[in-house]
Structure formats: C-alpha cells, structure tokens
C-alpha cells in the first residue's frame, strides 16, 4: 500500500513514477472498483495510448482506439462505461497512472 | 470574403503570410503594430497597396504609432467601423 500522502486530495498520484499494478488496485478500490481482466485490458490500452501519442485521450478518441486495438465490440462507449462508470477516459486515466486531467473537456 | 486583421510589423512572418493569403474581395484591417504597414512610401506600404484587399487602419493605434499621413486608399476607422467590417465580412482571420 502506498501511503496516503503520495496522493493528492482527489486521489491522483502526486508522482506518476509511483505507479505500479498494485497501486492501480489501490486507486481502483478507492473508487469502489475491483479490477478484473477486462479492466486491465483497458488500463493497459490507456497506457499504450499515452506512450504512443504522448497525451491522454478524450472519450471519443479512446472509443475509436479501443475499436482499432480490441475490436468493434469493445470500441463502444457503453462498454467503457460498464467498466469505468461516469467518465471512463478520466477515471481510467486516474487508475492507469496517467497525468491528472486539466479539466479541459 | 475574409476580413484579415494584422497586428504585426512589416518585418514579421505574420505580415508575409497574411499578404500571401489575401484574395481579391477580402479586406485588411491594420491594428496594433500592423499600422506601420501603411507608413507612406515604404516597400511594405507599396506591397500592401498591391494586395487587392480593401484597406483599413485602426485610428487609435495609428495615432499612437505616429502614422498620420496614409495613402488615399487606406480608410482610417474607429471601433464602430471595426464592428461594421466584421458584420460585412462573414469571417475574420487574425494575424499577429
């Protein structure tokens, strides 16, 4: 377990280098999510996206990226919402250890 | 038809790019540092006069810069005139 002071008041990592799979589980638990294999598939996809494009995706781009990488069935916002309810791109990025969004979209 | 607004001196990349993008029927409003483009008898002024656009300069910025005498084809305008130009031309592009 990473100590509480390694997170800001909204639960984002202060230092992205702290991220590792066990930390992802810790953040997810704080959001009331138990990570399954389907969650991990998406978290890895988000990290791949970040590595490929040096940015976190907006929802529209994430849906399309899922369709390209994981197939049409999973490239739908309803599927993403079922795993990361509310705002999948934001919540997924938080758990995947990507930068805190600037609230722009 | 485009209203181009140029806020950059005649030595700038913005000036060059703006002149190249102007089409017949467009208008060009000079404001801020752009007003130096209509200092009479300069190469920049001659280039501007040949560009094919209706030419305007914002009064307050021209006065501040010491641009008092401008060629006849350049209309000195105030804020009300600026608004009227944006109403007449359906789109504006800012160069700076």
């Amino acid at each position, binding site marked *: 377990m990473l100590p509480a002071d390694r997170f800001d008041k909204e639960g984002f990592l202060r230092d992205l280098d702290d991220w590792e799979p066990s930390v992802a589980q810790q953040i997810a638990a704080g959001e009331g999510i138990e990570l399954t294999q389907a969650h991990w598939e998406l978290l890895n996809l988000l990290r791949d*996206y970040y590595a*490929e*494009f*040096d*940015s976190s*995706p*907006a*929802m*529209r*781009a994430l849906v*399309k*990226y899922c369709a*390209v990488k994981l197939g049409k069935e999973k490239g739908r916002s309803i599927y993403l919402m079922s795993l990361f309810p509310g705002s999948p791109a934001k919540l997924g990025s938080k758990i995947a250890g990507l930068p805190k969004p600037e609230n*722009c*979209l | *038809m*485009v209203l181009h607004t140029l806020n950059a001196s005649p030595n700038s*990349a*913005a000036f*060059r*790019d703006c002149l*190249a*993008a*102007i*089409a017949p029927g467009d208008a060009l409003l000079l404001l801020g540092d752009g007003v130096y483009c209509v200092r009479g008898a300069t190469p920049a002024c001659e280039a501007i006069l040949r560009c094919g656009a209706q030419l305007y300069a914002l009064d307050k910025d021209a006065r501040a810069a010491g641009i008092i005498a401008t060629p006849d084809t350049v209309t000195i305008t105030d804020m009300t005139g600026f608004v009227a130009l944006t109403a007449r031309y*359906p*789109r*504006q*592009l*800012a*160069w*700076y």
Partner: protein
Amino acid sequence: MSVTVTGKKTLVVIRHTPYGSSLARAALDAAMAMAAFEQAIDILFLGDGVLHLMPDQDSAAIGVNNVGKLLASLPLYDIDSVYVDAASAAKYRIATYDTPIAGQFLDQAQIQQLLSRNDHLLGF
C-alpha cells in the same frame, strides 16, 4: 457539457512553431476539443506552422509533450482534413511522405479558397 452540432465549419490556422510558444499547443487543444464535441473542423499548417510536421521529433529532454506524437492521434479524433502550406513546407524541406500525419499540400490559390469555405477561422 454537450454542444449542439450546428453544421458550422471551422478552420484552425496554425502559424507558430510547435515548441517556441504556448500558442501552438493551444491551437491543437482547441482543434481536438472541437472534434471531441463532434464539430466539423479542419486544420491548416501555414508559414512556420508547417514545422509541426517535422519527422523525428523527440521533446522528452525539454519536458513538454511530443507534438509529432500528438498529431499522430488526430485521426482518432475524426479531424476532417489536415492541410499544409506547400510553399512553406518546401522551404523547410518537409516532404509529404515524411510527416507524422497525412496532410493535403496546398498552393497559394488553394489556401485562399480554403479560407473562404469556412464559417469561422481561428488563427493561432
């Protein structure tokens, strides 16, 4: 928030270098936001803006995002078209086959026509 799609077409004109000021990134953020809200949006790289299309960008050591990589994500945002000022690209020896995203190279007359085809022009 949601934004009504009104059928208006916007062109974002990018004229500044990618790493020399904050304007260039602002322009790309604006374009990506328009696309994320499903508005019709095109991008034109003009003048020094064509330097966005340099191959082999690696900005890790200057601590800002890699613009070349960011451009490569634009197809995922359904940006309609990317246009490039051919004369400026030639001046910087930027070739069509070498850019991080595919763009249509336009001459001066085509650029003038493009400007008149859009409802709004956002110049950065």
